[in-house]
């Protein structure tokens, strides 16, 4: 597994993996992940609902979810998707805690009502955060951008980098 580096946050082009409604944090980050080595964790993402999926994901792929994406726990579920190579999550609606955790881990997550009716699994989508459009099959879908200060956290690679830069973090325990 390579840790995915976003080279151009303004434009993401990736292949779509489509999921349904109410995809919860425990599916993305099962209990077993807590004590695994960091590099092993992402491979357990969606192992209960979609066994084998994690091995198929390529750097830059995009997850499209239904309603209530990320419902559940405060666990670092977004980290597992990001570390698998997922470049962006787009869903009909997103749980507030998942959205915060995603932003704080440097993973772009967008609420785009209607997205599941316009995108199919395997489609190539282009997500442009300068003009706030998702383009798929030559159709451009406008979306409401995240507030600037959240985009800034994502562009910094997450909140830990920001806290480090402000000298707010100390030595390992």
């Amino acid at each position: 597994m390579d840790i995915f580096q976003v080279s151009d946050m303004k434009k993401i082009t990736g292949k779509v993996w489509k999921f349904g409604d109410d995809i919860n944090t425990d599916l993305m980050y099962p209990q077993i992940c807590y004590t695994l080595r960091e590099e092993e964790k992402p491979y357990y993402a969606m192992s209960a609902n979609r066994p084998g999926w994690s091995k198929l994901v390529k750097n830059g792929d995009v997850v499209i979810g239904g309603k209530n994406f990320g419902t559940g726990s405060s666990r670092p579920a977004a980290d597992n998707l990001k570390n698998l190579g997922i470049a962006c999550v787009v869903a009909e609606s997103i749980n507030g805690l998942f959205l915060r955790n995603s932003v704080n881990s440097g993973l772009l997550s967008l609420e785009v009502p209607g997205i599941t009716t316009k995108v199919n699994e395997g489609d190539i989508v282009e997500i442009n955060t300068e003009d706030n459009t998702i383009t798929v099959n030559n159709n451009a879908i406008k979306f409401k951008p995240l507030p600037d200060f959240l985009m800034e956290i994502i562009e910094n690679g997450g909140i830990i980098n920001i806290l480090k830069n402000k000298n707010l973090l100390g030595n390992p325990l």
Partner: protein
Amino acid sequence: MNTIEKILKNHSIDEIHNVSPGDIVTVNVDKAIIVDMAALHPEFINNPPLKPFDNDKIAIIFDHFVPPPNIEIANRVDKLRKLARLWNIKDFYDVGRGGISHVLSSEKGWLKPGSIIANTDSHTISTGAFNVLGRGLGTPELMGIIATGKTWFMVGNTININFEDKLSEKSSAKDVFFSMVKLVGDIPNDNIEFHGDGIKHLDMDQRSSISTMCAEMSAEFAIFPFDGILGNYLESHNIHNVNPVYPDKDAEYSRTYDIDLKNIEPMVAFPDRIINNVKPISEIGKIEINVAVVGSCANGRISDLKDIAKVLKNKKVNKNVRFIVTPATMDIYDEALRLGYISDIVESGAIVTNPTCGACLGGHMGVSSENDVIISSTTRNFKGRMGSPGSKIYLGSSRTVALSAVNGYISGE
């Protein structure tokens, strides 16, 4: 402004006169709570905050893995003990001293009406029962709050839930939640305020059970009003001179739902999700179970233990069922011992564990096998939540769990 908007306004770091949906408000936090799970986040151990913004406003609570089930977790959480000493944290609750953070927070008097609580656990919305705004946050975000004392909230729409009348003997607070979720569904980014005459028939345990479960609707906040019942609870926990927050007369709510408590019957959530997945037990036929669990931040309180002791007294747990009971805090455990509930439970063939989140998150103290069919009064029924993804988790009230444990199939009476 409604109650939630007013509490946010009162805590804003900038002087503002109004808060409404769509706003982003940066607020001062009154208490930041770290639970043992934070030690399992690599960033917390590798890059802990340099120092807390105010050590009296930080609490460290061991609850998820009490006592630690393996060496890795034992070593990780031990680092939090070091941190508690380093930061001189007075509100530090180690193994055997406290219990589940959300329940302990109320016992310790940290939930002062009108305040804001941040906690690394996702069920912090439970604080709403106390007229308090609480939100579960990821560990990295809590690290920022520990360092600065501040966080932000995006203000969502608020729905109004009106409770009328009172519950029948056979129904519980969990059934109220299931009725509500059936009516309302999921509401990511939106809030709930509870109103209506029915509230005066709900005690603090029942309100806490309802507010805790609102995390499962993806609500941001779910808040009850201040009244005599909450006032008496606070007085009995030595909290005086509180400043509760009430909605303005022209407070805005996006939708209103009326729920008649007397019509609510025992309900269950079927496995894998709660949204669009709850049914009255009277309509489900015979579903056999082999594991029963009572506990968690939602339903490990003294009234839960009272409910199940009443069912189990002089009865036996069905021979096909394993029944695990977990009081939420040491104080609740102690009270249940004094009142004789623990003997009623144990003599029936159930096991009583120490306070922990254990079985609810499939961590320890009741991890499920691939063949288990579980009825549980804990918080979540996600696939694999309590152990093997092959196990099936039905959720119900503690009373329903106890009745089902005796009968061997899901039972509301």
